[in-house]
């Protein structure tokens, strides 16, 4: 087996991993940074982010506004010291991306432009048309090529972490093109592997979003935090789940039901106004909008289609010119995939799973409970999203905390003793043998593709927009069954080069672990908060018992154990979370008392 020795190992080369790699290379060019990705970096799922990235930039906006929007949006389950740090770093990261060439959209005078986004009081979302993630990812990837200390391992799949002497010391990788294993030893390791939305059926995520890093850390004893909080994005393509960005509504789009009625006014989000109004109607937060859809469906006010019931995203009044300038990708998607020109007809949409709020818990410096192991981006739970993420906070998170992770990993690497190369290689050989055993197991003819479909269906049924104890229990039971049947999987492909049959089975193993963490955390949370809404007697938020982070602990051969940890509250005491007219009234009352 090949054995590569690096100083810092970064697993995942999307927005967070690339930002971490550049930070590490800049912090100390003499260190070798190994950057591993199971796809070419520019294929990473950051590429699909559309709307933009938050950073306070207008004179009438403040960091406090961004802080409050984020903490309220997260239904007070955020780590407030982390949010405060986050909002203070956002804009400088946006400027840094600008210097690296990101083609941010501009105002006529040449300054960067910002747009409105859901749950944000003032416009602060930097955007590059509606291909923000694409442009950011390509900018970061291309910029990363100028640092000779970054050694890329493109199309290498991580089968295990190496934890030796109580600290992270590397990883075992499978080269997809050759089927050969490589061990990488490093004095510090950063996980930047993205989310896990593919465990659900209708989702906006790319096929690669399989929770790899979460499962790897989980299996090494790191509890996964707040996994029950899974974001449904309200405006997605029926059937495929592909995303129509929130920027459609930021630019002024309407959501209407089958009667052409802007139904959000019935769910505490009014008043209705023709122009977009921040934190009201279509610019409410994602959890509330997806919940409103669910109610409309129950009331029979949605439209039935073969791909499920839908409402309409109406962009016609924005006009062709604005659509082409601000939302070209949306127009392309609607036209190519659905045969609809958004300038002429409203787009049928429904909610789909979009984002994993929870993940690998880290402190404000991105350190996980395992010494030398850091995590950043969607795979992590640094604490800024709470129970519901605001749109455009997650892209910025990649750069703020990717940067921190790169710096911290360098610091740790420089202070850490040498790796135990011999022991690391032994571990890598054992991990490789385990992966090969799955490939070659006789099994009982079970297809992993079937298990994957059943998993996605049961997650949608039990852990959807609204949740019921008995259904969540059924999902937990089903997942346990699927894990048992996983042992019966027979891989048809026993070859070495590009064995995607085998890799998909390895990914399914990760997905099942992550899905269990989600379902059990959901079942145990007997309250409603943010994206976790129950309709079986736990409809209210219960701060007395559940103003707490859930922690799912991995147990080999058993379902995870759920415990709870404290939430850091600094300057925002939990209060009523309101949008629209009520939200505005509460806010002016609060401002009045502060005067």
């Amino acid at each position: 087996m090949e054995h590569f020795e690096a100083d810092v190992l970064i697993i995942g080369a999307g927005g967070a991993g690339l930002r971490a790699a550049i930070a590490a290379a800049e912090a100390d060019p003499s260190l070798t940074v190994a950057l591993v990705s199971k796809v070419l970096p520019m294929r990473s799922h950051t590429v699909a982010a559309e709307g933009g990235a938050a950073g306070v930039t207008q004179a009438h906006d403040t960091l406090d506004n961004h802080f409050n929007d984020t903490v309220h949006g997260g239904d007070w389950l955020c780590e407030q010291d982390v949010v405060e740090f986050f909002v203070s770093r956002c804009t400088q990261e946006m400027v840094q991306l600008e210097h690296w060439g990101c083609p941010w959209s501009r105002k006529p005078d040449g300054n960067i432009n910002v747009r409105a986004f859901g749950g944000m009081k003032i416009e602060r979302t930097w955007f590059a048309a509606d291909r923000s993630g694409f442009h950011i990812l390509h900018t970061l990837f291309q910029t990363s090529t100028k640092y000779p200390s970054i050694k890329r391992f493109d199309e290498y799949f991580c089968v295990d972490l190496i934890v030796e002497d109580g600290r992270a010391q590397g990883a075992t990788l499978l080269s997809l093109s050759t089927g050969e294993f490589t061990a990488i030893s490093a004095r510090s390791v950063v996980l930047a592997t993205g989310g896990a939305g593919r465990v659900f059926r209708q989702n906006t995520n790319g096929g690669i979003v399989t929770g790899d890093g979460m499962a790897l850390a989980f299996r090494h004893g790191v509890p996964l935090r707040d996994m029950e909080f899974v974001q449904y994005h309200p405006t997605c393509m029926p059937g495929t789940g592909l995303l129509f960005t929130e920027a459609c509504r930021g630019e002024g789009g309407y959501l209407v039901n089958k009667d052409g009625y802007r139904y959000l006014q019935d769910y505490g989000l009014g008043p209705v106004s023709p122009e977009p109004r921040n934190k009201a109607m279509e610019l409410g937060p994602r959890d509330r909008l997806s919940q409103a859809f669910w109610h409309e469906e129950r009331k029979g006010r949605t439209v039935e289609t073969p791909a499920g019931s839908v409402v309409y995203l109406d962009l016609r009044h924005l006009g062709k010119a604005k659509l082409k300038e601000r939302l070209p990708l949306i127009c392309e998607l609607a036209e190519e995939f659905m045969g609809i020109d958004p300038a002429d007809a409203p787009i049928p949409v429904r909610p789909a799973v979009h984002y994993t709020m929870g993940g690998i818990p880290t402190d404000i410096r991105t350190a996980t409970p395992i010494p030398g192991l850091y995590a950043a981006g969607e795979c992590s739970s640094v604490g800024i999203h709470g129970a519901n993420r605001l749109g455009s906070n997650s892209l910025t998170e990649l750069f703020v905390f990717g940067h921190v992770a790169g710096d911290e990993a360098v610091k740790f690497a420089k202070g850490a003793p040498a790796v135990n190369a011999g022991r690391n290689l032994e571990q890598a050989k054992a991990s490789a043998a385990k992966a090969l055993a799955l490939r070659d197991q006789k099994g009982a003819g079970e297809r992993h593709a079937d298990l994957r479909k059943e998993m996605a269906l049961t997650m949608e049924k039990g852990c959807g927009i609204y949740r019921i104890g008995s259904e969540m229990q059924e999902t937990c039971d089903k997942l346990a069954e699927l894990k048992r049947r996983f042992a019966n999987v027979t891989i048809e492909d026993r070859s070495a080069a590009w064995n995607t049959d085998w890799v998909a089975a390895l990914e399914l193993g990760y997905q099942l672990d992550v899905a269990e963490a989600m379902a059990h955390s959901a079942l145990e949370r007997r309250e409603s908060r943010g994206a976790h809404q129950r309709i079986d007697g736990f409809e209210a938020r219960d701060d007395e018992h559940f103003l707490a982070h859930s922690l799912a602990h991995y147990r080999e051969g058993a379902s995870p154990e759920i415990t709870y940890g404290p939430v850091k509250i600094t300057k925002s005491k939990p209060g009523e979370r309101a949008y629209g007219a009520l939200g505005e009234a509460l806010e002016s009352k609060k401002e009045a008392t502060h005067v």
Partner: protein
Amino acid sequence: MSEAATLTKTVELRILRYLPASDESPSFRSFQVPYSDDMSVLQALQTIKDTLDATLSFRWSCRMAVCGSCGMMINGEPRLACNTFLRNLPPGPVTVEALKNFPIERDLVVSVGDFVKKIESIYPYIIPKEPKTVAQGTYLQTPAQLAAYESFSDCINCMLCYAACPQFGENPDFIGPGAMALLQRYNGDSRDGGQQKRLDAIAGEDGVWSCTAVGICSEVCPKHVDPANAINQNKTNSAFDFFLHYLRKDAAQ
């Protein structure tokens, strides 16, 4: 059409298979897949992999024509599988092959390493004209200045243009349309001062002059990047550059 009727309708995919461990050369194999109006070629391939033959290998991820993974030859044309819909293809079998002009690693998976090296070779990053610290804030760039390079920044690196390019087919060392578009993306950026460095990189015989102006690269681009235009601009720039170089040499003597 009733659901049962939809399900009984099938489509045949003729797929060029190649397993390096057992096959001497690639050969076609046919699969029948249930047809539906909204099915993409990618979904048809996924159906084959999930239900008929798990050994079929291909790259894919985003499903929405932005990650650039799923380029392949569909009925002889370079296309993205995810945004090519069966309903838009002529009736009869659909032929699917690995992207032309690249070595096949397996089935529909081609080698991408050389392409990535080409991208890396043209200094694909801002070389600032006037360096600035983050504390000094953003550069000004008017919408017109943005428009000067914006379309070239839309390239998703799907390599369809390389599969279409006859010149690249003849000479794999040709820098090729995608990398030229990327070069133009940075050379056209008002913040950048690295033009000379990049022009030097493409002045050799495998650079911009290898292009024979067929223009098919722009026709197959799924993102309307127009690499042919980038190449033409750089031929002009490169010619001008050559001329200047000559004058400078003259002056030095």
